[in-house]
Protein backbone atom coordinates (compact mmCIF):
# COMPACT_ATOMS: atom_id res chain seq x y z
CA UNK A 1 0.00 0.00 0.00
CA UNK A 2 2.73 2.38 1.01
CA UNK A 3 4.46 1.76 -2.29
CA UNK A 4 1.39 2.56 -4.33
CA UNK A 5 1.07 5.92 -2.54
CA UNK A 6 4.64 6.85 -3.41
CA UNK A 7 3.85 6.10 -7.04
CA UNK A 8 0.90 8.43 -6.84
CA UNK A 9 2.97 11.20 -5.29
CA UNK A 10 4.98 11.36 -8.51
CA UNK A 11 2.68 13.09 -10.93
CA UNK A 12 1.70 10.82 -13.84
CA UNK A 13 3.29 13.18 -16.41
CA UNK A 14 6.81 12.98 -15.04
CA UNK A 15 7.57 9.27 -15.44
CA UNK A 16 5.98 9.38 -18.88
CA UNK A 17 8.12 12.36 -19.82
CA UNK A 18 11.25 10.71 -18.43
CA UNK A 19 10.43 7.51 -20.28
CA UNK A 20 9.98 9.38 -23.48
CA UNK A 21 13.20 11.29 -22.92
CA UNK A 22 15.04 8.10 -22.13
CA UNK A 23 13.73 6.23 -25.17
CA UNK A 24 14.40 9.27 -27.36
CA UNK A 25 17.96 9.52 -26.12
CA UNK A 26 18.36 5.79 -26.57
CA UNK A 27 17.13 6.07 -30.15
CA UNK A 28 19.44 9.02 -30.75
CA UNK A 29 22.27 7.03 -29.19
CA UNK A 30 21.46 4.12 -31.46
CA UNK A 31 21.52 6.33 -34.54
CA UNK A 32 24.77 7.97 -33.40
CA UNK A 33 26.27 4.57 -32.76
CA UNK A 34 25.55 3.35 -36.26
CA UNK A 35 26.66 6.63 -37.85
CA UNK A 36 29.98 6.54 -35.98
CA UNK A 37 30.46 2.89 -36.82
CA UNK A 38 29.71 3.49 -40.50
CA UNK A 39 32.16 6.40 -40.61
CA UNK A 40 34.91 4.33 -39.00
CA UNK A 41 34.17 1.39 -41.26
CA UNK A 42 34.40 3.62 -44.33
CA UNK A 43 37.67 5.17 -43.15
CA UNK A 44 39.36 1.82 -42.49
CA UNK A 45 38.06 0.01 -45.54
CA UNK A 46 38.13 2.68 -48.22
CA UNK A 47 41.90 2.81 -48.99
CA UNK A 48 42.06 -0.93 -49.57
CA UNK A 49 38.87 -0.83 -51.59
CA UNK A 50 40.22 2.03 -53.68
CA UNK A 51 43.42 0.12 -54.45
CA UNK A 52 41.37 -2.94 -55.32
CA UNK A 53 39.25 -0.88 -57.69
CA UNK A 54 42.32 0.74 -59.23
CA UNK A 55 43.79 -2.68 -59.92
CA UNK A 56 40.98 -3.20 -62.46
CA UNK A 57 41.61 0.09 -64.26
CA UNK A 58 43.73 0.90 -67.28
CA UNK A 59 46.78 3.19 -66.90
CA UNK A 60 44.85 6.20 -68.14
CA UNK A 61 41.86 5.58 -65.91
CA UNK A 62 44.08 4.98 -62.88
CA UNK A 63 46.22 8.08 -63.42
CA UNK A 64 43.29 10.29 -64.41
CA UNK A 65 43.01 13.70 -62.76
CA UNK A 66 39.39 12.92 -61.95
CA UNK A 67 39.51 9.25 -60.91
CA UNK A 68 36.17 7.51 -61.29
CA UNK A 69 34.52 5.68 -58.42
CA UNK A 70 32.08 4.04 -60.85
CA UNK A 71 31.77 3.85 -64.60
CA UNK A 72 35.21 2.73 -65.77
CA UNK A 73 36.00 -0.25 -67.96
CA UNK A 74 37.14 -3.08 -65.72
CA UNK A 75 40.09 -5.08 -67.02
CA UNK A 76 42.10 -8.00 -65.74
CA UNK A 77 45.16 -6.94 -67.75
CA UNK A 78 46.97 -5.67 -64.64
CA UNK A 79 46.75 -9.04 -62.94
CA UNK A 80 48.00 -10.72 -66.09
CA UNK A 81 50.89 -8.25 -66.11
CA UNK A 82 51.77 -8.93 -62.48
CA UNK A 83 52.52 -12.52 -63.36
CA UNK A 84 53.76 -12.33 -66.94
CA UNK A 85 55.15 -8.90 -67.71
CA UNK A 86 58.89 -8.41 -67.23
CA UNK A 87 59.42 -4.96 -68.68
CA UNK A 88 57.18 -2.05 -69.37
CA UNK A 89 57.37 1.43 -70.86
CA UNK A 90 55.34 4.00 -68.98
CA UNK A 91 54.96 7.45 -70.43
CA UNK A 92 53.84 10.54 -68.59
CA UNK A 93 54.66 14.19 -68.13
CA UNK A 94 58.27 13.31 -67.44
CA UNK A 95 58.75 11.43 -70.72
CA UNK A 96 58.90 7.67 -71.04
CA UNK A 97 60.54 5.39 -68.49
CA UNK A 98 61.23 1.72 -68.82
CA UNK A 99 60.53 -0.17 -65.64
CA UNK A 100 61.53 -3.74 -64.99
CA UNK A 101 58.75 -5.62 -63.27
CA UNK A 102 58.77 -9.42 -63.34
CA UNK A 103 56.80 -9.74 -60.11
CA UNK A 104 56.43 -13.50 -60.46
CA UNK A 105 60.11 -13.99 -59.65
CA UNK A 106 59.81 -11.78 -56.57
CA UNK A 107 56.71 -13.57 -55.38
CA UNK A 108 58.53 -16.91 -55.63
CA UNK A 109 61.43 -15.39 -53.64
CA UNK A 110 59.07 -14.10 -50.97
CA UNK A 111 57.35 -17.46 -50.63
CA UNK A 112 60.63 -19.40 -50.46
CA UNK A 113 62.38 -17.11 -48.00
CA UNK A 114 59.25 -16.59 -45.92
CA UNK A 115 58.32 -20.24 -45.52
CA UNK A 116 61.81 -21.62 -44.85
CA UNK A 117 62.76 -18.92 -42.34
CA UNK A 118 59.42 -19.38 -40.58
CA UNK A 119 59.95 -23.12 -40.35
CA UNK A 120 63.44 -22.75 -38.89
CA UNK A 121 62.28 -20.09 -36.43
CA UNK A 122 59.44 -22.35 -35.31
CA UNK A 123 61.68 -25.37 -34.67
CA UNK A 124 64.29 -23.37 -32.76
CA UNK A 125 61.62 -21.29 -31.04
CA UNK A 126 59.73 -24.36 -29.88
CA UNK A 127 62.90 -25.87 -28.41
CA UNK A 128 63.88 -22.68 -26.61
CA UNK A 129 60.32 -22.02 -25.43
CA UNK A 130 60.15 -25.48 -23.90
CA UNK A 131 63.56 -25.03 -22.32
CA UNK A 132 62.54 -21.75 -20.72
CA UNK A 133 59.14 -22.99 -19.70
CA UNK A 134 60.16 -26.25 -18.01
CA UNK A 135 63.76 -26.05 -16.84
CA UNK A 136 65.60 -24.02 -14.28
CA UNK A 137 68.04 -22.06 -16.40
CA UNK A 138 70.70 -19.90 -14.82
CA UNK A 139 69.86 -16.27 -15.58
CA UNK A 140 66.55 -17.25 -17.18
CA UNK A 141 64.90 -13.87 -16.73
CA UNK A 142 67.92 -12.03 -18.09
CA UNK A 143 67.99 -14.29 -21.11
CA UNK A 144 64.29 -13.85 -21.72
CA UNK A 145 64.66 -10.11 -21.35
CA UNK A 146 67.55 -10.17 -23.78
CA UNK A 147 65.42 -12.08 -26.28
CA UNK A 148 62.50 -9.70 -25.83
CA UNK A 149 64.76 -6.68 -26.25
CA UNK A 150 65.48 -7.83 -29.79
CA UNK A 151 61.90 -6.91 -30.66
CA UNK A 152 62.52 -3.36 -29.48
CA UNK A 153 65.71 -2.71 -31.46
CA UNK A 154 65.31 -0.24 -34.28
CA UNK A 155 66.07 -2.34 -37.39
CA UNK A 156 67.95 0.57 -38.86
CA UNK A 157 70.49 0.35 -36.02
CA UNK A 158 71.41 -3.24 -36.89
CA UNK A 159 71.07 -2.75 -40.62
CA UNK A 160 74.43 -1.03 -41.12
CA UNK A 161 76.61 -3.63 -39.36
CA UNK A 162 74.61 -6.51 -40.83
CA UNK A 163 75.14 -5.05 -44.27
CA UNK A 164 78.90 -4.83 -43.64
CA UNK A 165 78.98 -8.32 -42.16
CA UNK A 166 77.05 -9.79 -45.06
CA UNK A 167 79.28 -8.01 -47.54
CA UNK A 168 82.37 -9.50 -45.90
CA UNK A 169 80.85 -12.99 -45.79
CA UNK A 170 79.42 -12.70 -49.34
CA UNK A 171 75.90 -13.25 -48.04
CA UNK A 172 74.41 -10.19 -49.75
CA UNK A 173 71.73 -11.18 -52.25
CA UNK A 174 71.74 -14.87 -51.29
CA UNK A 175 68.83 -17.03 -50.20
CA UNK A 176 70.85 -18.37 -47.29
CA UNK A 177 71.63 -14.87 -46.05
CA UNK A 178 68.01 -13.71 -46.17
CA UNK A 179 66.68 -16.89 -44.58
CA UNK A 180 69.23 -16.63 -41.77
CA UNK A 181 68.37 -12.99 -41.23
CA UNK A 182 64.61 -13.50 -41.16
CA UNK A 183 64.98 -16.51 -38.88
CA UNK A 184 66.81 -14.24 -36.45
CA UNK A 185 64.03 -11.69 -36.89
CA UNK A 186 61.31 -14.12 -35.91
CA UNK A 187 63.10 -16.08 -33.21
CA UNK A 188 62.41 -13.69 -30.32
CA UNK A 189 58.76 -13.56 -31.28
CA UNK A 190 58.53 -17.34 -31.70
CA UNK A 191 60.18 -17.99 -28.32
CA UNK A 192 57.90 -15.61 -26.41
CA UNK A 193 54.75 -16.55 -28.22
CA UNK A 194 55.25 -20.32 -27.93
CA UNK A 195 56.47 -20.03 -24.35
CA UNK A 196 53.18 -18.34 -23.48
CA UNK A 197 51.29 -21.31 -24.83
CA UNK A 198 53.59 -23.98 -23.37
CA UNK A 199 53.31 -22.34 -19.94
CA UNK A 200 49.59 -23.09 -20.11
CA UNK A 201 50.07 -26.83 -20.72
CA UNK A 202 49.92 -28.52 -17.31
CA UNK A 203 53.16 -30.11 -16.06
CA UNK A 204 51.17 -33.21 -15.18
CA UNK A 205 51.06 -34.26 -18.83
CA UNK A 206 54.81 -34.77 -19.04
CA UNK A 207 55.08 -35.99 -15.47
CA UNK A 208 52.63 -38.73 -16.36
CA UNK A 209 54.54 -39.52 -19.53
CA UNK A 210 57.83 -39.70 -17.64
CA UNK A 211 56.33 -41.88 -14.96
CA UNK A 212 55.38 -44.16 -17.83
CA UNK A 213 59.05 -44.29 -18.75
CA UNK A 214 59.40 -41.60 -21.41
CA UNK A 215 62.63 -39.65 -21.29
CA UNK A 216 62.50 -35.87 -20.99
CA UNK A 217 63.03 -35.47 -24.70
CA UNK A 218 60.49 -38.11 -25.62
CA UNK A 219 57.89 -36.45 -23.43
CA UNK A 220 58.74 -33.18 -25.19
CA UNK A 221 58.13 -34.33 -28.72
CA UNK A 222 55.45 -36.91 -28.04
CA UNK A 223 53.38 -34.94 -25.55
CA UNK A 224 54.18 -31.24 -25.62
CA UNK A 225 54.73 -30.70 -29.34
CA UNK A 226 51.38 -32.27 -30.33
CA UNK A 227 49.70 -30.19 -27.59
CA UNK A 228 51.22 -27.02 -29.04
CA UNK A 229 50.09 -27.46 -32.63
CA UNK A 230 47.61 -24.58 -32.57
CA UNK A 231 50.21 -22.35 -30.90
CA UNK A 232 52.73 -23.27 -33.56
CA UNK A 233 50.22 -22.56 -36.30
CA UNK A 234 49.41 -19.11 -34.93
CA UNK A 235 53.09 -18.32 -34.45
CA UNK A 236 53.83 -19.50 -37.99
CA UNK A 237 51.20 -17.20 -39.43
CA UNK A 238 52.54 -14.15 -37.60
CA UNK A 239 56.14 -14.99 -38.53
CA UNK A 240 55.17 -15.45 -42.16
CA UNK A 241 53.40 -12.11 -42.24
CA UNK A 242 56.41 -10.37 -40.63
CA UNK A 243 58.80 -11.74 -43.23
CA UNK A 244 56.34 -11.22 -46.04
CA UNK A 245 55.99 -7.52 -45.13
CA UNK A 246 59.63 -6.78 -44.30
CA UNK A 247 61.02 -3.98 -46.41
CA UNK A 248 64.22 -2.25 -45.38
CA UNK A 249 66.56 -5.26 -45.04
CA UNK A 250 65.27 -6.63 -48.33
CA UNK A 251 65.89 -3.24 -49.91
CA UNK A 252 69.50 -3.05 -48.76
CA UNK A 253 70.54 -6.72 -48.79
CA UNK A 254 69.00 -7.95 -52.04
CA UNK A 255 69.18 -6.85 -55.64
CA UNK A 256 66.56 -6.59 -58.38
CA UNK A 257 66.60 -9.76 -60.44
CA UNK A 258 68.32 -11.61 -57.60
CA UNK A 259 66.72 -12.77 -54.37
CA UNK A 260 64.76 -9.54 -53.93
CA UNK A 261 61.36 -10.02 -52.28
CA UNK A 262 58.08 -8.34 -53.19
CA UNK A 263 57.92 -5.22 -50.93
CA UNK A 264 60.94 -3.38 -52.39
CA UNK A 265 59.82 -4.43 -55.87
CA UNK A 266 56.39 -2.84 -55.43
CA UNK A 267 58.03 0.30 -54.04
CA UNK A 268 60.35 0.37 -57.05
CA UNK A 269 57.47 -0.05 -59.52
CA UNK A 270 55.83 3.00 -57.90
CA UNK A 271 59.05 4.99 -57.81
CA UNK A 272 58.77 6.51 -61.28
CA UNK A 273 57.98 10.08 -60.22
CA UNK A 274 56.00 12.51 -62.39
CA UNK A 275 53.17 10.45 -63.83
CA UNK A 276 55.43 7.64 -64.97
CA UNK A 277 53.84 5.06 -62.74
CA UNK A 278 51.52 2.32 -63.91
CA UNK A 279 49.29 2.53 -60.86
CA UNK A 280 47.00 -0.17 -62.19
CA UNK A 281 49.90 -2.62 -62.17
CA UNK A 282 51.16 -1.39 -58.78
CA UNK A 283 47.66 -1.78 -57.34
CA UNK A 284 47.26 -5.27 -58.80
CA UNK A 285 50.66 -6.34 -57.44
CA UNK A 286 49.74 -4.85 -54.06
CA UNK A 287 46.44 -6.74 -54.07
CA UNK A 288 48.07 -10.07 -54.93
CA UNK A 289 50.61 -9.29 -52.21
CA UNK A 290 48.04 -8.33 -49.60
CA UNK A 291 45.51 -11.11 -50.23
CA UNK A 292 47.40 -13.89 -48.37
CA UNK A 293 47.89 -11.55 -45.41
CA UNK A 294 44.16 -10.81 -45.23
CA UNK A 295 43.31 -14.51 -45.43
CA UNK A 296 45.87 -15.36 -42.76
CA UNK A 297 44.64 -12.56 -40.53
CA UNK A 298 41.18 -14.00 -40.77
CA UNK A 299 42.49 -17.47 -39.88
CA UNK A 300 44.30 -16.31 -36.76
CA UNK A 301 41.73 -13.72 -35.69
CA UNK A 302 41.35 -15.38 -32.29
CA UNK A 303 45.08 -15.14 -31.64
CA UNK A 304 45.51 -11.61 -32.99
CA UNK A 305 45.80 -9.99 -29.59
CA UNK A 306 48.50 -12.36 -28.50
CA UNK A 307 50.30 -12.08 -31.80
CA UNK A 308 50.54 -8.32 -31.92
CA UNK A 309 51.64 -7.96 -28.31
CA UNK A 310 54.40 -10.57 -28.45
CA UNK A 311 52.37 -13.02 -26.40
CA UNK A 312 52.22 -10.47 -23.58
CA UNK A 313 48.46 -10.09 -23.52
CA UNK A 314 46.44 -13.25 -23.38
CA UNK A 315 42.80 -13.86 -23.25
Amino acid at each position, binding site marked *: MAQSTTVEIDTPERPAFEDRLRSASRAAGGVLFWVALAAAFLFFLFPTF*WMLETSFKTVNEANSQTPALVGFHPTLANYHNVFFLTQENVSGEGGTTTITTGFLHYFINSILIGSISTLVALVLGMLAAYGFSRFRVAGKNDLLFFILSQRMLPPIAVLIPIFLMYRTLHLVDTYFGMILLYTTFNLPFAVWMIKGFVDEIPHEYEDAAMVDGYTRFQSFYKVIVPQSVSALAATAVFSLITVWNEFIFALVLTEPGGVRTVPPSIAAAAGGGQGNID*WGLVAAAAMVFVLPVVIFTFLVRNHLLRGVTFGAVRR
Partner: protein
Amino acid sequence: MGSESAEHGGPMPVRGPRPGLTDRQLAWLFIFPTVLILLAIAIFPLIWSLGLSFTNYVATGNVDPVSGNPVPYQWVGIHNYRTLLTNNDVTYASIWHQFTVTAVMVICAVGIEFVLGFGLAMLLVRQFPGRGLILTLMLTPMMLAPVVVGLFWRFMFDPGNGDHGILNNLILLVSARPLDIAQSTPAIIAVIIADVWMWTPFMLLIGVAGLAAIPRYLYEAAQVDRASAWFRFRHITLPLVWPLLLIALLFRTIDAIKLFDLYFSLASGAPANTNPISYVIYNKAFEQYDTGNSSALAYIILVIVIALANIYIRNLTKAQAAH
Protein backbone atom coordinates in the same frame (compact mmCIF):
# COMPACT_ATOMS: atom_id res chain seq x y z
CA MET B 1 63.47 -52.89 -18.70
CA GLY B 2 60.34 -51.42 -20.18
CA SER B 3 58.16 -54.34 -19.13
CA GLU B 4 55.96 -52.09 -16.98
CA SER B 5 55.05 -49.86 -19.90
CA ALA B 6 54.51 -52.68 -22.37
CA GLU B 7 50.82 -52.72 -21.50
CA HIS B 8 50.39 -49.25 -23.04
CA GLY B 9 51.01 -50.77 -26.41
CA GLY B 10 52.82 -47.70 -27.78
CA PRO B 11 56.53 -47.42 -28.54
CA MET B 12 58.50 -48.86 -25.69
CA PRO B 13 60.16 -46.01 -23.80
CA VAL B 14 63.36 -46.61 -21.93
CA ARG B 15 62.98 -46.84 -18.19
CA GLY B 16 65.57 -46.19 -15.53
CA PRO B 17 68.39 -43.67 -15.30
CA ARG B 18 68.26 -41.06 -18.09
CA PRO B 19 70.82 -41.79 -20.75
CA GLY B 20 73.69 -39.38 -20.30
CA LEU B 21 72.17 -35.92 -20.03
CA THR B 22 71.20 -34.10 -16.87
CA ASP B 23 68.30 -31.68 -16.94
CA ARG B 24 70.70 -28.78 -16.84
CA GLN B 25 72.54 -29.98 -19.94
CA LEU B 26 69.29 -30.74 -21.67
CA ALA B 27 67.99 -27.25 -20.91
CA TRP B 28 71.03 -25.71 -22.55
CA LEU B 29 70.60 -27.97 -25.55
CA PHE B 30 67.09 -26.62 -25.96
CA ILE B 31 68.06 -22.98 -25.58
CA PHE B 32 71.52 -22.91 -27.09
CA PRO B 33 70.67 -22.68 -30.83
CA THR B 34 68.43 -19.66 -30.28
CA VAL B 35 70.96 -17.86 -28.12
CA LEU B 36 73.75 -18.62 -30.57
CA ILE B 37 71.87 -17.25 -33.58
CA LEU B 38 70.83 -14.13 -31.70
CA LEU B 39 74.40 -13.55 -30.57
CA ALA B 40 75.77 -13.95 -34.08
CA ILE B 41 73.17 -12.04 -36.09
CA ALA B 42 71.89 -9.52 -33.55
CA ILE B 43 74.46 -8.85 -30.84
CA PHE B 44 77.73 -9.13 -32.73
CA PRO B 45 76.63 -6.57 -35.35
CA LEU B 46 75.54 -4.20 -32.60
CA ILE B 47 78.97 -4.35 -30.97
CA TRP B 48 80.59 -3.87 -34.34
CA SER B 49 78.52 -0.81 -35.10
CA LEU B 50 79.30 0.64 -31.67
CA GLY B 51 82.97 0.37 -32.65
CA LEU B 52 82.29 1.90 -36.06
CA SER B 53 80.52 4.85 -34.49
CA PHE B 54 83.91 5.91 -33.10
CA THR B 55 85.64 5.75 -36.51
CA ASN B 56 85.48 7.64 -39.76
CA TYR B 57 84.74 4.44 -41.70
CA VAL B 58 83.14 4.87 -45.11
CA ALA B 59 81.39 1.79 -46.50
CA THR B 60 82.55 2.46 -50.06
CA GLY B 61 86.20 2.77 -48.94
CA ASN B 62 88.02 5.67 -47.29
CA VAL B 63 89.99 7.85 -49.67
CA ASP B 64 92.49 10.61 -49.10
CA PRO B 65 90.65 13.88 -49.84
CA VAL B 66 93.70 15.36 -51.61
CA SER B 67 95.29 12.51 -53.55
CA GLY B 68 92.18 10.34 -53.94
CA ASN B 69 94.13 7.24 -52.89
CA PRO B 70 92.53 4.64 -50.64
CA VAL B 71 93.48 5.04 -46.99
CA PRO B 72 92.66 3.00 -43.89
CA TYR B 73 89.92 4.36 -41.66
CA GLN B 74 90.78 5.87 -38.30
CA TRP B 75 89.64 5.99 -34.73
CA VAL B 76 88.10 9.41 -34.20
CA GLY B 77 86.80 9.10 -30.63
CA ILE B 78 83.53 10.89 -29.95
CA HIS B 79 83.98 13.10 -32.99
CA ASN B 80 80.96 11.60 -34.79
CA TYR B 81 78.69 12.14 -31.80
CA ARG B 82 79.93 15.69 -31.35
CA THR B 83 79.45 16.72 -34.98
CA LEU B 84 76.06 15.03 -35.07
CA LEU B 85 74.72 16.88 -32.07
CA THR B 86 76.27 20.25 -32.80
CA ASN B 87 77.27 20.61 -36.39
CA ASN B 88 75.62 20.78 -39.77
CA ASP B 89 75.52 18.11 -42.42
CA VAL B 90 75.33 18.03 -46.21
CA THR B 91 71.67 17.03 -46.29
CA TYR B 92 70.40 18.02 -42.89
CA ALA B 93 70.69 21.53 -41.47
CA SER B 94 70.27 20.36 -37.90
CA ILE B 95 69.79 16.95 -36.37
CA TRP B 96 67.65 18.53 -33.65
CA HIS B 97 65.16 19.56 -36.29
CA GLN B 98 64.92 15.94 -37.47
CA PHE B 99 64.45 14.80 -33.88
CA THR B 100 61.66 17.35 -33.50
CA VAL B 101 59.97 16.24 -36.73
CA THR B 102 60.15 12.63 -35.56
CA ALA B 103 58.73 13.57 -32.16
CA VAL B 104 55.86 15.49 -33.80
CA MET B 105 55.00 12.48 -35.98
CA VAL B 106 55.23 10.05 -33.06
CA ILE B 107 53.24 12.15 -30.59
CA CYS B 108 50.49 13.17 -33.04
CA ALA B 109 50.11 9.74 -34.61
CA VAL B 110 50.18 7.75 -31.38
CA GLY B 111 47.96 10.30 -29.60
CA ILE B 112 45.27 10.19 -32.28
CA GLU B 113 45.52 6.40 -32.54
CA PHE B 114 45.08 6.13 -28.79
CA VAL B 115 41.98 8.34 -28.58
CA LEU B 116 40.38 7.06 -31.78
CA GLY B 117 41.21 3.42 -31.08
CA PHE B 118 39.88 3.51 -27.54
CA GLY B 119 36.77 5.41 -28.65
CA LEU B 120 36.07 2.83 -31.33
CA ALA B 121 36.69 0.06 -28.82
CA MET B 122 33.91 1.53 -26.64
CA LEU B 123 31.61 1.28 -29.67
CA LEU B 124 32.68 -2.16 -30.77
CA VAL B 125 32.60 -3.79 -27.35
CA ARG B 126 28.80 -3.84 -27.63
CA GLN B 127 27.10 -6.81 -29.18
CA PHE B 128 25.39 -6.17 -32.49
CA PRO B 129 24.73 -8.20 -35.64
CA GLY B 130 27.81 -8.63 -37.81
CA ARG B 131 30.17 -7.48 -35.05
CA GLY B 132 32.78 -10.21 -35.58
CA LEU B 133 33.09 -9.59 -39.30
CA ILE B 134 33.17 -5.79 -38.97
CA LEU B 135 35.82 -6.00 -36.25
CA THR B 136 38.02 -8.37 -38.26
CA LEU B 137 37.73 -6.20 -41.39
CA MET B 138 38.60 -3.07 -39.44
CA LEU B 139 41.66 -4.78 -37.99
CA THR B 140 43.24 -5.68 -41.34
CA PRO B 141 45.22 -2.43 -41.92
CA MET B 142 47.70 -3.25 -39.15
CA MET B 143 48.58 -6.56 -40.78
CA LEU B 144 49.46 -5.00 -44.14
CA ALA B 145 53.01 -4.11 -45.15
CA PRO B 146 53.79 -0.51 -44.11
CA VAL B 147 55.46 0.08 -47.45
CA VAL B 148 52.24 -0.89 -49.26
CA VAL B 149 50.14 1.24 -46.90
CA GLY B 150 52.40 4.18 -47.76
CA LEU B 151 51.72 3.56 -51.44
CA PHE B 152 47.95 3.39 -50.86
CA TRP B 153 48.03 6.84 -49.33
CA ARG B 154 50.45 8.33 -51.82
CA PHE B 155 48.12 7.16 -54.55
CA MET B 156 45.17 8.79 -52.81
CA PHE B 157 46.98 12.09 -52.40
CA ASP B 158 49.18 12.34 -55.46
CA PRO B 159 49.61 9.56 -58.03
CA GLY B 160 52.08 11.85 -59.84
CA ASN B 161 49.52 13.84 -61.82
CA GLY B 162 49.79 17.09 -59.88
CA ASP B 163 47.99 16.26 -56.63
CA HIS B 164 44.86 14.83 -58.17
CA GLY B 165 44.46 11.68 -56.19
CA ILE B 166 40.95 10.89 -54.97
CA LEU B 167 41.53 12.46 -51.54
CA ASN B 168 42.85 15.66 -53.04
CA ASN B 169 39.84 15.72 -55.33
CA LEU B 170 37.72 15.66 -52.18
CA ILE B 171 39.87 18.31 -50.52
CA LEU B 172 39.52 20.54 -53.61
CA LEU B 173 35.75 20.51 -53.11
CA VAL B 174 36.13 22.47 -49.88
CA SER B 175 39.51 24.15 -50.23
CA ALA B 176 41.35 25.94 -52.99
CA ARG B 177 44.62 24.15 -52.33
CA PRO B 178 45.24 20.40 -52.44
CA LEU B 179 47.46 18.70 -49.86
CA ASP B 180 50.79 18.70 -51.70
CA ILE B 181 52.80 15.86 -50.16
CA ALA B 182 55.97 17.14 -51.81
CA GLN B 183 55.91 19.97 -49.22
CA SER B 184 57.12 19.55 -45.64
CA THR B 185 54.02 20.19 -43.53
CA PRO B 186 51.53 18.39 -45.82
CA ALA B 187 53.92 15.43 -45.98
CA ILE B 188 54.05 15.24 -42.19
CA ILE B 189 50.23 15.44 -42.04
CA ALA B 190 49.91 12.71 -44.68
CA VAL B 191 52.34 10.45 -42.83
CA ILE B 192 50.39 10.95 -39.61
CA ILE B 193 47.08 10.17 -41.35
CA ALA B 194 48.49 7.02 -42.94
CA ASP B 195 50.02 5.89 -39.64
CA VAL B 196 46.72 6.54 -37.86
CA TRP B 197 44.93 4.49 -40.50
CA MET B 198 47.33 1.64 -40.13
CA TRP B 199 47.71 1.50 -36.35
CA THR B 200 44.42 2.66 -34.83
CA PRO B 201 43.22 -0.94 -35.31
CA PHE B 202 46.00 -2.03 -32.95
CA MET B 203 44.66 0.24 -30.20
CA LEU B 204 41.14 -0.87 -31.09
CA LEU B 205 42.05 -4.55 -30.72
CA ILE B 206 43.68 -4.06 -27.35
CA GLY B 207 40.94 -1.70 -26.21
CA VAL B 208 38.17 -4.17 -27.07
CA ALA B 209 40.01 -6.96 -25.25
CA GLY B 210 40.48 -4.78 -22.18
CA LEU B 211 36.88 -3.57 -22.10
CA ALA B 212 35.44 -7.03 -22.65
CA ALA B 213 37.41 -8.33 -19.66
CA ILE B 214 35.77 -5.93 -17.18
CA PRO B 215 33.34 -7.91 -15.01
CA ARG B 216 29.71 -6.88 -15.59
CA TYR B 217 28.82 -6.89 -11.91
CA LEU B 218 30.95 -3.80 -11.35
CA TYR B 219 28.69 -1.81 -13.67
CA GLU B 220 25.59 -3.35 -12.15
CA ALA B 221 26.76 -2.32 -8.70
CA ALA B 222 27.43 1.20 -9.99
CA GLN B 223 23.93 1.27 -11.50
CA VAL B 224 22.43 0.37 -8.14
CA ASP B 225 24.38 3.26 -6.62
CA ARG B 226 23.06 5.51 -9.42
CA ALA B 227 26.59 6.42 -10.48
CA SER B 228 26.77 8.75 -13.48
CA ALA B 229 28.11 7.54 -16.83
CA TRP B 230 31.19 9.70 -16.34
CA PHE B 231 31.75 8.26 -12.86
CA ARG B 232 31.49 4.73 -14.21
CA PHE B 233 33.96 5.53 -16.97
CA ARG B 234 36.37 7.33 -14.66
CA HIS B 235 36.28 4.89 -11.74
CA ILE B 236 35.57 1.51 -13.32
CA THR B 237 36.40 1.44 -17.03
CA LEU B 238 39.57 3.49 -17.10
CA PRO B 239 41.45 2.02 -14.14
CA LEU B 240 40.73 -1.54 -15.29
CA VAL B 241 41.73 -1.00 -18.91
CA TRP B 242 44.70 1.22 -18.14
CA PRO B 243 47.44 -1.44 -17.81
CA LEU B 244 46.54 -2.85 -21.21
CA LEU B 245 46.31 0.57 -22.80
CA LEU B 246 49.73 1.39 -21.41
CA ILE B 247 51.18 -1.66 -23.11
CA ALA B 248 49.54 -0.61 -26.37
CA LEU B 249 50.84 2.95 -26.01
CA LEU B 250 54.40 1.93 -25.36
CA PHE B 251 54.40 -0.66 -28.13
CA ARG B 252 53.14 1.95 -30.55
CA THR B 253 55.54 4.65 -29.36
CA ILE B 254 58.56 2.43 -29.78
CA ASP B 255 57.43 1.30 -33.22
CA ALA B 256 56.54 4.81 -34.33
CA ILE B 257 60.05 6.03 -33.51
CA LYS B 258 61.32 3.43 -35.95
CA LEU B 259 58.98 4.67 -38.70
CA PHE B 260 60.69 4.09 -42.02
CA ASP B 261 58.87 1.96 -44.61
CA LEU B 262 55.70 4.00 -44.60
CA TYR B 263 57.60 7.25 -44.92
CA PHE B 264 59.78 5.81 -47.66
CA SER B 265 56.89 4.93 -49.92
CA LEU B 266 54.60 7.80 -48.99
CA ALA B 267 56.72 10.88 -48.58
CA SER B 268 60.28 10.33 -49.72
CA GLY B 269 59.55 12.99 -52.37
CA ALA B 270 59.25 15.59 -49.60
CA PRO B 271 62.17 17.86 -48.65
CA ALA B 272 64.94 16.33 -46.52
CA ASN B 273 63.98 18.41 -43.48
CA THR B 274 60.80 16.29 -43.23
CA ASN B 275 62.72 13.00 -42.83
CA PRO B 276 62.15 11.10 -39.60
CA ILE B 277 65.28 9.97 -37.82
CA SER B 278 65.31 6.41 -39.24
CA TYR B 279 65.29 7.86 -42.70
CA VAL B 280 68.16 10.18 -41.76
CA ILE B 281 70.20 7.16 -40.67
CA TYR B 282 69.34 5.36 -43.90
CA ASN B 283 70.32 8.41 -45.92
CA LYS B 284 73.65 8.83 -44.13
CA ALA B 285 74.46 5.11 -44.31
CA PHE B 286 73.33 4.12 -47.78
CA GLU B 287 73.19 7.32 -49.79
CA GLN B 288 76.10 9.32 -48.34
CA TYR B 289 77.95 6.16 -47.21
CA ASP B 290 79.01 7.99 -44.05
CA THR B 291 79.04 4.78 -42.03
CA GLY B 292 80.74 6.06 -38.88
CA ASN B 293 78.42 9.02 -38.56
CA SER B 294 75.26 7.03 -39.23
CA SER B 295 76.30 4.34 -36.74
CA ALA B 296 76.65 7.03 -34.10
CA LEU B 297 73.15 8.31 -34.86
CA ALA B 298 71.78 4.76 -34.85
CA TYR B 299 73.25 4.32 -31.38
CA ILE B 300 71.61 7.47 -30.10
CA ILE B 301 68.24 6.13 -31.30
CA LEU B 302 69.05 2.75 -29.81
CA VAL B 303 69.59 4.29 -26.38
CA ILE B 304 66.31 6.19 -26.59
CA VAL B 305 64.40 3.09 -27.63
CA ILE B 306 66.03 0.94 -24.94
CA ALA B 307 65.05 3.50 -22.31
CA LEU B 308 61.43 3.37 -23.53
CA ALA B 309 61.53 -0.43 -23.77
CA ASN B 310 62.61 -0.57 -20.13
CA ILE B 311 59.60 1.44 -19.05
CA TYR B 312 57.47 -0.84 -21.18
CA ILE B 313 58.80 -4.07 -19.73
CA ARG B 314 58.48 -2.80 -16.18
CA ASN B 315 54.82 -1.99 -16.81
CA LEU B 316 54.28 -5.24 -18.62
CA THR B 317 55.40 -7.22 -15.61
CA LYS B 318 53.09 -5.15 -13.43
CA ALA B 319 50.15 -5.67 -15.79
CA GLN B 320 50.78 -9.40 -15.97
CA ALA B 321 50.94 -9.61 -12.20
CA ALA B 322 47.55 -7.88 -12.06
CA HIS B 323 46.10 -10.34 -14.55
